């Protein structure tokens, strides 16, 4: 049953767990960066907020609605962002994009991705890649705006 194996790859337990129990839902007070990402094709949404301290992301929150892939990816992302500088966060985004588009990832990079690696199964479902990237688009926007505002 290849189909079920592919489905199991896509919907790994880690993903379903993040979908059912999304992390970091508590609104950030006085956020330093925020952004909203919408996928106009399906209506999935992610709102991201983060607070900075000493040049690092110290508090993150996301609110969203959408499919298991978009919401789990955003949830995992918020966990990975804490303690990262904006540059480190964007670097992680870039590695994750390479994973999604089927490019080679080093062992070290895979380790650095933590639970994000569970989304590797999405690669076999090209139409769902944009779901996995939705939260990351909001991060990209949020950091872009933050960088503009803070020189």
């Amino acid at each position, binding site marked *: 049953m*290849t*189909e*079920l194996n*592919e*489905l199991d790859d*896509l*919907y790994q337990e880690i993903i*379903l767990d993040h979908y059912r129990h999304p992390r970091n839902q508590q609104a950030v007070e006085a956020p330093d960066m925020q952004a909203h990402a919408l996928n106009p*094709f*399906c*209506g*999935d*949404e992610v709102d991201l907020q983060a607070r900075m301290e000493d040049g690092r992301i110290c508090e993150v929150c996301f609110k969203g*609605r*959408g*499919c*298991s*892939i978009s919401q789990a990816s955003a949830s995992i992302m918020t966990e990975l962002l804490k303690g990262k500088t904006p540059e480190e966060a964007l670097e992680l985004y870039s590695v994750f994009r390479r994973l999604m588009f089927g490019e080679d990832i080093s062992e070290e990079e895979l380790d650095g991705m933590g639970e994000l690696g569970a989304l590797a199964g999405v690669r076999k*479902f090209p139409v*769902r890649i944009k*779901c996995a990237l939705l939260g990351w688009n909001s991060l990209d926007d949020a950091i872009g705006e933050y960088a503009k505002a803070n020189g």
Partner: protein
Amino acid sequence: MLDVQAIRKDFPILHQSVHGKPLVYLDNAATTQKPRQVIQALVDYYEGYNSNVHRAVHTLGQKATAAYEESREKIANFIGAPSSQDIVYTRGTTEAINLVSYTWAEENIGPGDEIVVTEMEHHSNLVPWQRIAQAKGATLKGIPLKEDWTLDMSTLGSVITERTKLVAVTHMSNVLGTIVPVKEIVQAARRVGAKVLIDGAQAVPHMRVNVADLDCDFYAFSGHKMCGPTGIGALYVKEEVLKEMEPFHRGGEMVREVWFDRATWNDLPMRFEAGTPNIADAIALGAAVDYLQTLGMDNIRQHEIEITSYAIEAFKELEEDLDHYGPRDLQYRGGIISFYAEDVHPHDLGTFVDSYGVAIRTGHHCAMPLMRQMGLPATARASFYVYNTTEEIDILVDALKKALRYFSK
């Protein structure tokens, strides 16, 4: 009674496997499959008489022109238009509605006027009117839906007023399957002198439509949702309205005489068909009309009522986990069933059942205002056509059951 197994043999695409399972194609509201008679019409044209239409004196040109115009006759006859001159070829419903918005509406809608739609329009019959309302200082109003997903016809008298210039309504909702009593709406519009446009994209493929009987001014539909090719559709316009309309696109074909600084317009309906038209697809749309007429539109409608009734019954097995929407009275409903499961997002449902060979659509179905009103981010939708069987409904329901189990584990 239609012989569905015999009909299925006409559709080459249906006989394939998807992820190792027989294809169950239930996305017919998005586009239908094509019978080999339609595919053959395209091949015959390109292999036998490909040539530009009108004006050519050579044999192939005359043959192409005859087939192109014969197709227009078939379409006129199919929807009960008094004359083929009332039929303008377009790329599809969207272009047809835009044609009306950029021509008739530009000339006839002004400040303070009202355009009335329903609360369940496809974006293609909403966004063009938003543009006109904004540009002209007119107001856009919606006929509301009732709890049973039919239109609240009791509001017609208050929504359609002396200020209403245009009533633009769907004939059948692409989300809910709701069939709109358009004739009553035309009568209400007539009382205040408003024009009526009907978006027939979901109706023409599935039921008998007679524009003369409806007495509407504009009727738009697409070829690809009725066994025809993509990129071709038609706009019916009542002759007295069409002859007063300014051209949409300008260029070759739509002119009678051209000087360096001015031009005069061709006869109807060529005045609205600038440039080399989509000849092959127009001819193949005629073949699609032939195909549907051979089956009989009343038979097609009856088959879809039976399939939908079977599906609604079968969905009872899922009712603990999954809601579905649309009128329960099948006299007011076409072959569409939109559904939503609290625990499984529509996209996840769609991906899951696809692995069982079942093609359904998920998302907002180009009806975001309706989704908001339903309080849902998206739905999954199964939509049926003449080649679908009750066995396919069983496969769908079985795959949905598996999905619900899978995601609740």
